[in-house]
């Protein structure tokens, strides 16, 4: 005699999402940085931008800012992000 029970989690959530294709290298690429408008995020991203340019040979760094840390970036910002090949979303605080 056994007891049959059921999985409480969103089992199929991961399966329905396909991750973006990873870049083999950052060399010569255009990378986006998203500022969440919290304190000190600008300084953090300035530092990240410098590392990307000097240590990884990134060709161009594009910067965006979302006005509210606890909500998604506005549609116009999301649409404009198509100009970069990879994004770094920073959580400054």
């Amino acid at each position, binding site marked *: 005699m*056994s*007891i*049959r*029970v*059921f*999985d*409480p*989690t*969103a*089992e199929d*959530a991961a399966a329905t999402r396909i991750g973006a294709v990873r870049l083999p290298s950052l060399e010569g690429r255009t990378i986006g940085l998203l500022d969440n408008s919290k304190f000190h995020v600008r300084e953090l991203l300035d530092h990240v931008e410098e590392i990307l340019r000097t240590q990884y040979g990134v060709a161009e760094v594009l910067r965006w800012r979302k006005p*509210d840390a*606890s*909500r*998604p970036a506005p549609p116009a910002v999301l649409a404009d992000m198509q100009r970069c090949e990879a994004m770094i979303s920073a959580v400054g*605080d």
Partner: protein
Amino acid sequence: MTLPRQTLRSAAYDLADALDVNEFYQHKGWTDGLPIMPPTEDHIVECLQAVGLAPGDIVGVEWVRQRPITAEKVAINAVMAGCLPGYMPVIVAILRAMCQEPFNMHGSTVSTGGSAPFIVVNGPIRTAIGMNATHNVLANGNRANATIGRAIRLVLINVLGCIPGQLDRSTLGHPGKYAFCIAEDEEDSPWTPLAQERGVPAGMSGITVMAGESPRQLLNEWTHDPEEILETFAAEMRHNMLTYSVWAGNYALLIPKQLRELIVAAGWHKHDIREYIYRAARVLRGDWATVGKANIVHRRGGPNQEFTALRSPDDLLVVAAGGPAGGFGVVIPPWLGSKAQAITQAIEVHTT
């Protein structure tokens, strides 16, 4: 009881007994840390029937990460929490409210600020399912209060991934994250019930949910003057504005019988309370110097810049609840001002 067969889509596990089920679920991280009840097919189906939903029906979608919450997953988590099927209409209404965009469910449940959905139930369903609105109302002792609140937490953990250290980034959290659900004491109060004030027709049941920080208890047994009583509530709100967060939004006040009767005797209604608190719960930027935050006194508007706790009197949720004795009250502050807004939702009672 014979149940019509409904096809559950979730993965099934055959385990030896209820103790094994608990150990398995604990090991998987599928609980809040406390033991769970085994979610068996019969119990899950009874919960679905109580709300007239099919397993695949969508109760709501968390809009930031576009995660659907199916009725089947809600029922499984409700059974695990220890709910009876009769609690399901309340749980479904709460989740529908939390999925509305202004509640900002993603932001408020994953933030370092560590809030919990604070739920107030109004209307006939409170008494039908035996909810508590009096002694020890914010704490232990009542199955419906405890397990409805817990079911919401288990849905957040299991369906939306609000696992501490993963999606849930709370620095501290607070005990309300286990369960934070009360009924309003409508029988012992002449005031309009909260859900009715916020649009649910009289005679219908409804829930109100806000992203609440931990309750701040106060005491004033040394006056019969409603303004003096409410000044103690306003002072607690001002203190929260200075020591925690200054941003204006929904605050909840719980006013138990002893203080409530004094306010009622003076002829005050909930709207009088809201007007008084709106005027009184204000601080100046310069006040931050008194709580160790002198460094921000001279920013932006300078020391005389005024902040209100409420954007308007309507931001205040006044709730009649608590045991009969003691001049206590409670202020429940918002997670982060108006970034998450209180939502009131009518409860649909399913008739078979």
